[in-house]
């Protein structure tokens, strides 16, 4: 079938995006609209001594100048983290208070202190500059080591030593014993660099308050409008859930950063009620750098033990994770259940132990960013495997092959139960496409023109389809992670799918429709995907963690099952055959073995006219379903990267990048390939280019594109994207998910290639020309 599952159909949504007809939050203009501007802390850590609003209040166009005392006075609650993590000693995590407008203390540069509401954006900004905040500066801790050092500045009173939690997973003693008895132990210090998400569309909010109805509306750049509404109501007490409508219209990229509810949305909703005006705020790029939740920022020491024949016997990992100044919505889960549970990688590892020390610093909050925890895990595991192979004089591919998990289901020592895969199949496919065997000849060619060539591999695995509700509930999640769907067949036979997933670049309007087209043989254009509006769509959990395929589409499949059952009943009744004789194909309801058939639209019409339905059948054709996954899904793959380094400048060029992924069943190969391209570009960005840098006083030195290096077209190679898929056994479509894989598998592949080229394993991301040049110098000194 040309438009069904597996067809590379063009994206339905692209017409409006590429013709400039997309409707993003900032495109919306409401009646009676005013603008908000925020006064932000220029200090990383300071007491707020006083706020003088008088000059600002008297300025042209100013409607209100609002501060944190007014906000808390009106009963607006603190921003929370929704996943409770328990420390080794059984104590709960230390969550410090986060008010949407700081009341007595600021904790990072960019912390919002005052909101100015004015008739125009320029007036709001002008008046914001006239607000005088008197600060008493405090010493700041901008980095993990500074925050955890004795005598470090205390960032939150209830987090002594700035520790949020000290958590562990796995069996400590057996792991240490296994490593102590190992024939070879590889030990590495590994840093995962801090990243800024940089969605193309900055965050934006526009709010409306209807005094007659006592009703609120929020248009915002969200990946999960229902979760936003829930949190805004239940925790921040901005408005009751039934009096708040949250709409996430077209959203230009999220990468995790638009999961969370930020101070600006809260303040704009509250200010709409206070001023009885609609209020718009859109971040400029500087605000995005200063306030969007960052990603990664781990420092890890890892030890991996091998027996004499190269089998892994134990893996011990100690990680320190930076949380920034406050705990963002899912922050606590990222370096724990989304990280340490993937430390078995694709390997049989009998003993794993991981401990994670989470700390506050005077920096922007850190939360999930494309991959969230899994890139950090894959980076640790895959750098360790590569380095271990080099140390033991083994071929890195063979060391991996020897340790691969080959039987499924496989229970790892760190919770996860892998359902399916053929790890060797992916590796073989990638090695062949990369001409792994011919590398030495190419290396000699590079050497002849003064360049250093290197090849590196990564065999990542990750967990998607987040997540079985009861399981995550037992691990501390404050929410369930199921998904919902409603299928509405209209009287004329067209179909609307209401989904709790949210598309912000993923192409759901196309792929979700393909699932329906595949099921009933109806034209793709007769299916409309409705999402992103809490007034239209039933409660849903949104899009992150590559869950829209495995979880969101599974909910649609469940609802389609119910529709199909009813259609068959109606068809059997009208065609006067038994239900078992009915088949649905090519948009027709057919009675098998006869030439009797009904057009799809005739079923819709019959359902809604209700003139002739089976006895006791309700009119209409609309079914809903909630799908709670049975397990995570486990996309995996083998990435091979080949680079050339210019030894004079340290500049790396990626010559070849092969990705062989196992994504289970693929709905639209073109869209999947796009997801892989984007993921690898972000992974290459992390490996070679991107890093948020803070100085010791907590000023961000990389808060513009003059200093933060986003990958450009000429930084990334032309990718070879291949598949060797095995079906996921735990969801109805057999989908594993593909949204984050590229970003998860590529950083170790790139770094393994560069370290191979330069002959020095001691290299951290981003491998900028200056760092690679320095590492080359160090390697030369070591050799002399």
């Amino acid at each position, binding site marked *: 079938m040309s438009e069904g599952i597996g067809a590379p159909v063009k994206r339905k949504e692209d017409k409006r995006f590429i013709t400039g007809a997309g409707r993003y939050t900032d495109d919306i203009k409401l009646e009676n609209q005013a603008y908000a501007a925020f006064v932000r802390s220029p200090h990383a850590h300071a007491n707020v001594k006083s706020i003088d609003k008088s000059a600002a209040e008297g300025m042209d166009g100013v409607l209100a100048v609002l501060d944190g005392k007014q906000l808390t006075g009106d009963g607006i609650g603190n921003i929370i983290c929704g996943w409770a993590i328990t420390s080794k000693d059984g104590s709960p995590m230390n969550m410090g208070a986060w008010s949407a407008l700081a009341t007595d203390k600021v904790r990072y540069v960019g912390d919002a202190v005052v909101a100015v509401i004015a008739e125009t954006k320029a007036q709001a900004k002008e008046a914001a500059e006239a607000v005088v905040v008197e600060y008493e500066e405090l010493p700041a801790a901008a980095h993990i080591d500074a925050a955890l050092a004795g005598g470090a500045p205390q960032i939150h009173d209830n987090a002594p030593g700035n520790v949020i939690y000290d958590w562990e997973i796995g069996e400590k003693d057996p792991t240490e014993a296994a490593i102590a008895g190992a024939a070879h132990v590889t030990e590495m210090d590994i840093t995962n660099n801090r990243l800024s998400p940089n969605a193309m569309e900055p965050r934006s909010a526009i709010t409306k308050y209807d005094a007659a109805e006592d009703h609120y509306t929020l248009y915002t750049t969200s990946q999960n409008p229902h979760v936003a509404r829930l949190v805004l109501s239940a925790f921040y007490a901005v408005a009751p859930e039934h009096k708040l409508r949250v709409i996430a219209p077209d959203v230009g990229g999220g990468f995790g950063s638009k999961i969370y509810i930020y101070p600006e949305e809260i303040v704009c909703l509250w200010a709409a009620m206070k001023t009885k005006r609609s209020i718009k705020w859109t971040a400029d790029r500087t605000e995005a750098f200063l306030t969007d939740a960052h990603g990664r920022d781990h420092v890890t020491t890892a030890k991996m033990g091998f027996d004499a024949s190269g089998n892994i016997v134990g893996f011990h990992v100690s990680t320190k994770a930076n949380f920034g100044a406050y705990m963002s919505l899912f922050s606590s889960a990222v370096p724990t259940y989304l990280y340490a549970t993937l430390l078995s990688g694709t390997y049989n590892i009998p003993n794993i132990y991981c401990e994670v020390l989470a700390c506050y610093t005077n920096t922007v909050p850190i939360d999930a960013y494309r991959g969230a925890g899994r890139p950090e895990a894959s980076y640790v595991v895959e750098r360790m495997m590569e380095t271990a192979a080099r140390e033991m004089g083994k071929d890195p591919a063979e060391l991996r092959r020897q340790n691969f998990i080959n039987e499924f289901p496989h229970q790892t020592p760190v919770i996860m139960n892998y359902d399916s895969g053929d790890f060797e199949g992916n590796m073989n496919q990638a090695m062949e496409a990369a001409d792994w065997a011919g590398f030495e000849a190419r290396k000699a060619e590079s050497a002849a023109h003064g360049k250093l060539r290197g090849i590196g591999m990564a065999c990542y695995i990750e967990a998607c389809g987040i997540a079985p509700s009861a399981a995550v509930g037992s691990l501390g999640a404050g929410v369930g992670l199921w998904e919902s769907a409603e299928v509405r067949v209209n009287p004329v036979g067209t179909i609307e799918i209401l989904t709790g997933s949210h598309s912000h670049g993923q192409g759901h309007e196309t792929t979700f429709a393909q699932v329906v087209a595949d099921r009933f043989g109806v034209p793709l254009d007769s299916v409309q995907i409705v999402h992103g509006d809490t007034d239209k769509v039933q409660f849903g959990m949104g899009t992150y963690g590559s869950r829209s395929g495995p979880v969101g589409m599974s909910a649609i499949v469940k609802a389609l099952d119910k529709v199909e059952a009813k259609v068959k009943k109606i068809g059997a009744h009208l065609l006067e055959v038994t239900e078992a004789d009915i088949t649905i194909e090519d948009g027709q309801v057919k009675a098998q073995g006869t030439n009797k058939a009904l057009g799809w639209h005739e079923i819709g019409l019959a359902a809604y006219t209700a003139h002739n339905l089976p006895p006791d059948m309700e009119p209409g054709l609309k079914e809903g379903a909630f799908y709670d996954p049975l397990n995570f899904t486990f996309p995996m793959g083998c990435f091979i990267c080949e680079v050339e380094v210019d030894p004079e*400048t340290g500049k790396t060029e990626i010559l070849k990048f092969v990705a062989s992924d196992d994504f289970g069943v693929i709905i639209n190969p073109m869209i999947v390939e796009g997801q892989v391209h984007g993921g690898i570009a972000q992974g290459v960005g992390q490996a070679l280019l991107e890093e948020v840098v803070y100085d010791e006083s907590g000023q961000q*030195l990389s808060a513009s594109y003059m*200093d933060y290096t986003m990958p450009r077209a000429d930084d990334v190679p032309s990718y070879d994207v291949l598949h060797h898929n095995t079906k996921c056994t735990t969801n109805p479509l057999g989908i594993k998910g593909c949204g984050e894989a590229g970003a998860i598998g590529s950083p170790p592949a790139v770094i393994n290639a560069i370290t191979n080229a330069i002959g020095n394993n001691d290299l951290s991301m981003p491998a*900028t*020309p200056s760092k690679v040049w320095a590492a080359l110098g160090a390697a030369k000194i070591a050799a002399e």
Partner: protein
Amino acid sequence: MHNTTYHKASSAAEAASLLSGADDGALLAGGQTLIPTMKQRLAAPSDLVDISGVAELKGISVSGSSVTIGAMTTHAEVASSAELRAVCPGLADLAGHIGDPAVRHRGTLGGSVANNDPAADYPAAMLALGATIKTNTREIAADDFFQSMFTTALDEGEMIVSVSFEAPEKGAYAKFPNPASRYAMCGVFVAKGAGGVRVAVTGAGDDGVFRSADMEAALSSNFAADALDGVTVSPNGMLSDIHGDAAYRANLVKVMAKRATAAA
């Protein structure tokens, strides 16, 4: 952006008088530096005097080896001038690698030289070519013009009209772009002309563009890349920032100088 009053000048004289009549005015050339700075509210001129419509400030003229380029000539025009390329390909190549196409079609030589960004490309060329910067009141030698980063010999209200130089016998520019901004992390222009060899370095110094006497001496006796092998570039006086430390930049100075020499 703060409020500002926009004027469009039709002659250099009108521009000068509009500027002197303004409270705190600024010339607007391509706007590629000034407008972003204003949008970030870091600059707030009371008046903008747009000189993009002033014909006498535009164009490239080559007579024999004498080259004059008007201040309002865009990077794209410099890059694509066949006349210029015939006598000084190094400068055309330099202009062709500034920013992106949008920047090259708006940004001007005069704006870049006036701004004297420590990582800009043109200052290295002007210094190495021994150019003369002509303003509405006088002529200034490049050696005197570029004083320190973002600082030039221009007086308040003084306007660059054009730059002139004698095309060198050999000349080329090698640039190592900053990974983020793609301005020069280190750019070296090497020129061998009637007045001898001149080597100018941008991007790497901690106080803007500078000439390297050691490299000039080495290349004067032997204009070949190898001649620079024996030159040691000290990290002292080099810029250290999040993109690279002084030692790395010192290394780049030598590597880029060798590449420019080889290309010249």
